[in-house]
């Protein structure tokens, strides 16, 4: 990937993976009940600057996103405010039911330290080779920009492409004639 391509917003064949998220399996640990994960992920909510995902007891957040089919993850966009936006973000591919106690048990598939540019919307390009076969993604937000008590995330967007798998919903029974 050339520097020019990564500088532009999205590479041509990468799509927003919003459609492939399995909404029923979403989990987020340590989120505040009034400011939940859907504020950062859902279409419309994530564009709204007033609606954020906020952490509760401390500044860490653990987000689990399963997908309806296997995808390849190319880049992510995480936006937030300059002080309370996330700083260190660790991504784990295909790890289910992680807790805060075992985030350090195995190395993340990738780590991103967000700069203020990223917080404004510049995508973070990931190690594509590590995310070739992703069924679920766990995002661990370790701390925030100003080390404050609460981390606020305005938007999380995932960009990538699908692996050619069968879309089960598209399978229709052939009528007998």
């Amino acid at each position, binding site marked *: 990937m050339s520097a020019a391509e990564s500088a532009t917003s999205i590479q041509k064949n990468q799509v927003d993976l919003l459609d492939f998220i399995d909404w029923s399996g979403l989990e987020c*640990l340590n989120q505040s009940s009034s400011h939940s994960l859907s504020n950062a992920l859902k279409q419309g909510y994530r564009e709204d600057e007033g609606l954020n995902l906020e952490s*509760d007891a401390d500044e860490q957040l653990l987000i689990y996103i399963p997908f309806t089919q296997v995808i390849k993850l190319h880049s992510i966009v995480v936006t937030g405010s300059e002080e309370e936006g996330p700083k260190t973000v660790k991504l784990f591919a295909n790890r289910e039911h992680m*807790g805060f106690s075992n985030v350090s048990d195995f190395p993340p598939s990738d780590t991103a330290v967000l700069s203020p540019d990223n917080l404004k919307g510049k995508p973070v390009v990931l190690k594509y080779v590590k995310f070739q076969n992703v069924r679920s993604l766990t995002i661990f937000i370790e701390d925030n920009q100003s080390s404050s008590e609460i981390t606020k995330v305005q938007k999380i967007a995932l960009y990538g492409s699908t692996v050619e798998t069968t879309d089960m919903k598209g399978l229709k029974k052939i009528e007998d004639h």
Partner: protein
Amino acid sequence: MVLEATMICVDNSEWMRNGDYSPSRFQVQADAVSLVCGAKTQSNPENTVGILTMAGKGVRVLATPTSDLGKILSCMHGLEMGGEMNLAAGILIAQLALKHRQNKNQQQRIIVFAGSPIKHEKKALEIIGKKLKKNSVALDIVDFGEEEDGKPEKLEALLASVNNNDASHIVHVPPSQNALSDVLISTPVFTGDGEGGSGFAATTAAAAAGGVSDFDFGVDPNIDPELALALRVSMEEERARQEAAAKKAAEEASSQEKGEDAQPQSDSQNATSTATEKVSDPMDEDDLLKEALALSMNIPGSDSSAGDAQMSEASNDDQELALALQMSMQDGSKESSAPSDVSKVLGDQSFMSSIISSLPGVDPNDPNVKNLLASLPGQSESQQKKDEDEKPKDEK
């Protein structure tokens, strides 16, 4: 019906020997534990429950979360008391046990029975509470037993730091006549935030404390509409059966002059009760009203000699039935298809005369009898014939 894994932290310290809860604090705690286990496993069969003790030599896990109720209850049996309770360690180890539950889809919950003084500081408890909240573990605290200055405050602070959307609760139980289990039944610890477990809670409350339900048959129609409906239908059927029995008893009744009138009326009453599906209370009021009217009208032969409940009910019914018959004949609002068949029976003169002759206390020449017979549809001719029949019989 939340899918949940629960760890129960039992206090088996020296303070549990005290008898201010009868028979002893430990016994009431054991009863409460078994009640909680039952409630959890009943509300959802996939729920698991585990137990650990906080005192003794150290925190010891007796059973990891399992859905086998027998195993859990047998753990409570033969527990020794001693030592001091270590609340912080108990909660942390409970959290660890929950982390390693088999089914990761279960919600995590810890229930703590805090019966002895708490040696930890409020700050330390708050830190623990935050850790629980971060890992989305709910906490229920049962504050009983030893009352110490600051204990309720410490426990409230712990609850406040854990509580997420009212998933966690605290119950303070002072020593009293009521058993700990009875007090707990009505609390959210059992009712599980008002859903699912309340069916279990309602039945146990009815059994133990003499019924607290506000609903007709002790079953909440919201929770179990089919059961409530089945109960109501069976109540109607029972009432209909009793009416039919009353009708039959009235036919054979020896001292009833209104025996034949009981038939159409019990049928119409049947139709009324099944058609409207009223609860028994309004019916009772109607019956009482009719009884009062009957007594005030001074209808003879109102008392049955039989001690049988059905018979006495039938005798009371007859007076009301007679009045109701008169009333219904006038406005015709209570009639349904059933009485039309019965009126055919009434039209059968021989049947009528046999009925009347079989009633020893009846004087067919009594003006009341004549009036009633006259009011029946198409009865005038039969009445005359009956009079003719009765006269020779009277001479016997």
